[in-house]
């Protein structure tokens, strides 16, 4: 709960001041991906749904699409985490970039945005910059956590 509150607060209050080209990273997405990867499918799904719901309260995005998308991301991250024995930071960054791009390309269809906000516009102005930022932040967080904690050991013990 504290994590979700912190994510929403930072996302809506602090990040708009440090956005690049008017685009800010999605901390909720990064957190859900990491929790799914290292916690499992269920944890990813539940946290994703909760984060999506909480973030939709402070956005014009409808709660259904926000919670569903974040939940699906958490679940997929959990499935992916189960298939990977060792996750290097580089693989994580590339993975986050790819998943963020995928989610970014699906979202405009889910939101049924105005005709001006077409697929091409979304790709260049939001999806790619946000995916890059998400990947950088995700990689940095992973690096910080793995340098201070025995993440691999924790994951193997936790998952078994």
């Amino acid at each position, binding site marked *: 709960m504290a994590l979700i509150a912190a994510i929403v607060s930072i996302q*809506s209050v602090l990040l708009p001041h440090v956005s690049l080209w008017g685009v800010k990273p999605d901390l909720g997405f990064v957190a859900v991906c990491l929790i799914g990867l290292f916690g499992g499918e269920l944890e990813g799904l539940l946290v994703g749904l909760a984060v999506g719901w909480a973030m939709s309260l402070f956005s014009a995005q409808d709660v259904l699409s926000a919670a569903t998308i974040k939940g699906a991301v958490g679940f997929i991250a959990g499935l992916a985490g189960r298939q990977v024995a060792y996750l290097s930071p580089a693989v994580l960054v590339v993975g986050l970039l790819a998943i963020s791009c995928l989610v970014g390309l699906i979202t405009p269809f889910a939101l049924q945005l105005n005709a001006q906000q077409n697929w091409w516009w979304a790709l260049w102005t939001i999806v790619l910059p946000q995916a890059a930022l998400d990947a950088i932040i995700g990689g940095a967080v992973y690096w910080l956590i793995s340098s201070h904690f025995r993440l691999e050991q924790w994951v193997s013990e936790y998952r078994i």
Partner: protein
Amino acid sequence: MRMVNFRLSYSARRVALALAVILVLGFLLLPGQLQTVFQTVGSPFGWIVSWPLQAVAGIHDRIADVWSQYMALQGVEEDNRQLRREMDLLQEQNAQLRESAAATERLAALLEFKKQALSTLVAAQVIGRDTGNWYKTIILNKGTSDGLQSDQGVITPAGVVGRIVKTTSSTAVVLLLTDPNNAIAGLIQRTRDEGIVEGTTHGVARLKYIPLLSTARPGDRVVTSGLVGGFPRGLAIGTISRIDKEDEALFQSAELSPEVDPNRVEEVLVILPSLFPTEGERLGAPKPKS
């Protein structure tokens, strides 16, 4: 190793001497003409040489400037440090005073507007922005517990900001005028032509569905028409900056510069419902005679 012999032969030396004498005599006897000839012959050559010359001169001047500046600066270095310290202090004080003055000005304007306008406006502060990147919204520090609901209009003394799309008990999300998913009924003040104001992906707004025969032009002000709920008639939306008229189109459209910069808004007023008559109520059907 074979050495190169620069010594001219005797006959060649005689030829060279003769040419030199002729040249000197020529300058003495015909100075103007010979100078002109040499000038003419040397002109293309001079043009070619002028390029590297200018380049070298430029480099030289630059080095000289840098050197003189460096020498000049050395003497005032300490003074400069002292002045910088003082300037930093004064700038800090100035920024604090400016901030206080700006806040006072804003709040005074808000208070004055609230006094002049209908008594049921709710003042709110902007506490955040949209958590995602797909919508342009602001988050207010007032919610349903203060009487705020979806579809209520949000304004500042300068003009329209947007409308509420979501509320919690203590917060409200306002979809800005400049968001492409927002639509507000607008009216060109001078020509009285109505249309729909919609945000654009470039962060401005656009008035759509202006009749083809309209004489709207850049500089015309656009206000709310009051045809749909949320806003009374006559609130400033923006100023037309460009008219777009496409061939075979049924309507014109106009690009607007919004009156309110949504990125800088800090305090707003929310218009509560039932404060103002909608256009339908205002024009209401005539009562049947008894």
